[in-house]
């Protein structure tokens, strides 16, 4: 044990006496995190390459809500879930507001479209005085891009599906204002409904009907000439005219939190730079091997495992120190909350640091020179960081890339840190990332120890 501590203390002392290494480990990540945080803090965009996922909660049960649902399901780029996962052989139940909220808070599907009771009736009796029918979008506000896309989609479909009701009412009002013959107004209502210029037909996606964006003024003239053939309007029927609804966004998770991008940046940069630091530490192992120091240490009757454990302990402590420097900097600069989840951060941060240290030692054991460690680690770490979500949220990556991220160190580290920072989970809530990190720490250290033992000879 004393030898382990001797080696550990000497390694720490050597590290602290290398200003470049200390600056790279502690100061550069803080700078990068700050820059990335301010650069991406206001990022919004629609560069989504994978389907946006959302739940649909129908509290209204009207034709209008069903039309809305059907229109949403028609959209490319949206995966709409109307029912909860079926338990075993049981029946899949529709989403409710409560179950949708729970799903969002648990870090599952991040959005829910809620059509409140009375939506259809409100839509059929709209008075155009600004009191628009409302749809609620319950959202995890950390999914900024997805939220913006979803709102755009909702506006699009509400435009399409609410059109018939609004058009009908609009025609009546216009007819009153202009003193038009009610029969003509009725005919026009019927024509618009029949042609479904802007919206899907009643009955949803499978109904025959014109393309939502087809139709022209010529069609309207033909219908007017047909006269008696116009169908009686039904204010609640489908078919489309233009219209809009109010979309009220409810931030499910972010009411008491600051910009979610900051917490993502803290976790992402922390993970990435921790890997760089331990890779550099691994390089120091190679340096000692090259200059004969390891050989000398072995001559002193120090067991190879003592040497490795001493080094491992030193590298872990450096990585863990870096973790806390980053977290404290995130707290001071971006007000990321590290106080309330302190115990979880302490444990998960330690597990991540252990796994990262093992990764660094594996690198040192397979590489033959310090230069090799440097080049290979740069490549591996940057790739893992990109795919794993350290640089940008995985939710905006293509589905295939998101799945690949599950095979990266960064992916699991981000999963755990995001769970703590954003979803307020404790260790039991991030049990799987904890297990993965523990497994990585043990397995990778075992590999490194085995590979190193053959290299610790003369």
């Amino acid at each position, binding site marked *: 044990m*004393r*030898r382990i501590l*001797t*080696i550990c203390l*000497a390694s720490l*002392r*050597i590290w602290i*006496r*290398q200003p470049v290494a200390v600056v790279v480990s502690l100061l550069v990540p803080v700078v990068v995190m700050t820059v990335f945080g301010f650069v991406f803090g206001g990022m919004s965009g629609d560069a989504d390459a994978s389907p946006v996922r959302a739940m649909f909660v129908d509290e209204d049960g009207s034709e209008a809500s069903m039309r809305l649902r059907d229109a949403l399901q028609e959209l490319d780029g949206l995966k709409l879930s109307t029912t909860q996962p079926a338990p075993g052989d049981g029946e899949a139940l529709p989403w409710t507001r409560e179950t949708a909220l729970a799903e969002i808070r648990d870090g599952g599907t991040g959005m829910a479209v809620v059509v409140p009771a009375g939506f259809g009736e409100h839509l059929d009796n709209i008075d155009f005085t600004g009191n628009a029918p409302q749809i609620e979008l319950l959202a995890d506000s950390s999914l900024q891009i997805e939220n913006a896309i979803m709102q755009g989609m909702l506006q699009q479909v509400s435009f399409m599906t609410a059109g018939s009701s609004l058009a009908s009412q609009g025609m009546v009002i216009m007819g009153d204002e202009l003193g038009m013959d009610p029969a003509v107004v009725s005919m026009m209502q019927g024509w618009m409904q029949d042609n479904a210029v802007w919206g899907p037909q009643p009955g949803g996606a499978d109904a025959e009907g014109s393309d939502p964006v087809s139709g022209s003024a010529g069609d309207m003239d033909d219908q007017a000439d047909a006269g008696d053939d116009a169908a009686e309007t039904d204010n609640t029927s489908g078919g489309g005219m233009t219209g809009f609804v109010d979309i009220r966004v409810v931030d499910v998770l972010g009411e008491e939190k600051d910009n979610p991008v900051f917490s993502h940046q803290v976790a992402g940069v922390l993970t990435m730079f921790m890997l760089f630091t331990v890779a550099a530490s691994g390089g120091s192992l190679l340096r000692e091997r090259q*200059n*004969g*120091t390891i*050989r*000398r*240490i*072995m*001559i*002193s*009757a*120090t067991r190879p495992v003592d040497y490795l454990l001493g080094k491992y302990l030193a590298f872990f402590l450096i990585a863990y120190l870096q973790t806390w420097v980053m977290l404290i900097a995130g707290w001071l600069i971006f007000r990321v909350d590290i106080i309330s989840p302190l115990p979880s951060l302490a444990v998960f941060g330690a597990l991540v640091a252990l796994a990262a240290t093992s990764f660094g030692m594996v690198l040192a054991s397979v590489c033959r020179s310090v230069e090799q460690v440097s080049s290979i680690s740069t490549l591996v770490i940057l790739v893992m960081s990109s795919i794993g979500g350290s640089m940008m949220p995985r939710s905006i990556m293509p589905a295939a890339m998101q799945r690949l991220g599950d095979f990266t160190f960064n992916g699991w580290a981000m999963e755990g840190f995001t769970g703590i920072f954003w979803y307020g989970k404790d260790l039991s809530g991030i049990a799987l990332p904890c297990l993965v990190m523990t497994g990585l720490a043990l397995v990778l250290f075992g590999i490194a120890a085995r590979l190193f033992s053959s290299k610790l*000879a*003369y």
Partner: protein
Amino acid sequence: MQIITAENLAYSYGQQRAVDGVSFSVGPGEVYGLLGPNGAGKTTLIGMLASLLDPAGGRILFNGEDLTGRPQLLRPQLGVVPQEVSLHDELTGRENLAFFGGLYGLAGNTLRQRVGEVLERVGLLKDADRRLGGYSGGMKRRINIGASLLHQPRLLLMDEPTVGVDPQSRNYIYELIAGLAEQGTAIIYTTHYMEEAARLCRRIGIMDHGRMIAEGTLAELLELLPVRDLIRIGISGAERAELEALAAGSLADFAPLIGDGELTLQVDNAGRSLAAISAAFGPEAARISDLAVERASLENVFLHLTGRSLRED
């Protein structure tokens, strides 16, 4: 009893036989030199003695006990000064010594005391708290030696410890070694500098191509030579043909070697031979431009035994 005895040690790197049946022993207070050119197998032999390499054959006895393949028993008894300066530049001299002392199980006041003693012994007490990166090469070498002395080993293995060292530090190291020997430490000292071996070592083993080709005191090794002295005579304006004629003629008894404008005569004793040489030259003696006498050395012994110079590479 001998501190260490090597019996028929052998080691191979693949097909290459690096050490082939080497045997020798070293007693307490003795400085034993291992002399040989690069690639002779000296470092490999040291590696086996330090238990870093498992011998492919033979055995190692320490104080009469066979400790072959038992490194945990052998290593605490040894101090090894490697050829490279294997220390940490970021640590001070004192911290480097404390680090290695800690690895040998020293701690607390004992460690502090030993570190102080060693610093004084290697003459670096006043520079102890400077970082090693700021030391001269000679100073680093001294700390390199000091790191092997902390646990007071009974046997010290020194692998070319003065390579690249300035003359002042080198002399310091020689005095250090002499002092250790006086205190009873057995020392195995490898070098390819014959002057070092001649100066420091009571007995010398000469290695070449993995084998011990000669062993003994300096006097015993020089006895292997047919001659003791070399007289180098420069003759002004002499062509090669002329030198060859002289070598084949009156100077033939002195086994002359022909050089560039000079002859090298090999004799048992230069002092006693000068008169005969002068007589053999005859009137040509007036053309002698310079004359130098060299004592036969280990270099000559190696040349005699192998046909190659110790410093050919």
